[in-house]
């Protein structure tokens, strides 16, 4: 009922940057104070719009990294070398600056306790961002749904939210596993290489357990991971996907 009441027009709002957190060499989290923010569901996005002095505008969609229960809205942005928006957000933006955004947006790639599980989250690169929101929400809401995150990153240095994910992985009901595709440190105890059928057979429960699966990452990652799950017998209707491009998203 409450949700029905918030189905209204999307309007652009101004947020003020309250904090900037360097997550990795290429990603930064932006914590925003937004007056009259109407709340969000874990997994939703916002659109961010930049306007140049000559009036030129560029707009991109970013997943929300914070849980609905968190005090501030947090976006985590990966800097793309040929990006129009992400270099500004990760290199130029300062605490106290204003940022124009609208949201929350989307209702498909969303998880909350009543959707149940077991909950399987497969992340490629910065595809982990909406899962931080979901896992923080899982924790804050005291959900008893078993949850597993399998996160694929190139190197240990590319793992976003590394300390927080390690901590979340010690919570009851949450398991976090990381695979490093390009380079593994000595004595690395996680997985190595891209997510494949063998890895998913270990992590993804069985098709009989009927996990609710969310896959988020670059298009190639999503196609490969979702395809492997279907080959293993998981029901396509229980797999929700979200793709972002190598540039832009």
């Amino acid at each position, binding site marked *: *009922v409450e*949700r*029905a*009441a918030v*189905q209204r*027009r*999307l309007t652009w709002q101004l947020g003020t940057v309250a904090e900037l957190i360097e997550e990795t060499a290429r990603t930064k989290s932006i914590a925003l104070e937004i007056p009259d923010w109407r709340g969000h569901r874990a997994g939703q*996005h916002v*659109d961010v719009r930049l306007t140049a002095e000559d009036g030129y505008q560029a*707009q991109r*969609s970013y997943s929300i990294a914070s849980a609905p229960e968190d005090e501030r809205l947090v976006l985590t942005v990966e800097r793309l070398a040929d990006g129009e928006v992400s270099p500004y957000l990760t290199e130029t933006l300062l605490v106290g600056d204003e940022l124009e955004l*609208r*949201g929350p*947006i*989307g*209702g*498909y*790639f969303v998880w909350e306790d009543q959707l149940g599980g077991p909950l399987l989250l497969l992340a490629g690169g910065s595809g982990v961002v909406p899962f931080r929101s979901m896992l923080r929400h899982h924790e804050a809401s005291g959900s008893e749904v078993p949850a597993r995150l399998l996160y694929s990153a190139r190197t240990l240095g590319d793992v976003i939210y590394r300390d927080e994910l390690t901590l979340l992985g010690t919570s009851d009901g949450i398991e976090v596993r990381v695979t490093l595709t390009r380079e593994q440190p000595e004595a690395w105890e996680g997985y190595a290489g891209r997510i494949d059928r063998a890895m998913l057979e270990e992590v993804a429960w069985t098709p009989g357990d009927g996990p609710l699966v969310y896959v988020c990452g670059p*298009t190639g990652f999503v196609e490969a991971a979702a395809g492997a799950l279907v080959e293993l017998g998981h029901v396509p209707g229980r797999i*929700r*996907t*979200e*793709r*972002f*491009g*190598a*540039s*832009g*998203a």
Partner: protein
Amino acid sequence: MTVLDGNAIAGPLHEVFGTEMTTAVGSCAGCGATAPVAEAAVYIRGPGIVGRCRRCDTVLMVLVTIRGRTCVDLRGLAALEPASSEGG
């Protein structure tokens, strides 16, 4: 060009339809497949936004914005039903 999905255009769709549309279920006029808008194959790097059926590649929707006015072509959709749980 990179293929994205309907999640990537949740904002523009919300703007056009006045409500959340990625959970709406579309039926392809080409092959009859039904899927949430979020699962459509979406191309956003052209002059407009194009959404295609993941099964048969039929163009389901085209959104083009020129001088602040958005033109929407949905001729590839036989039906578009808002998700009942989201409609309130």
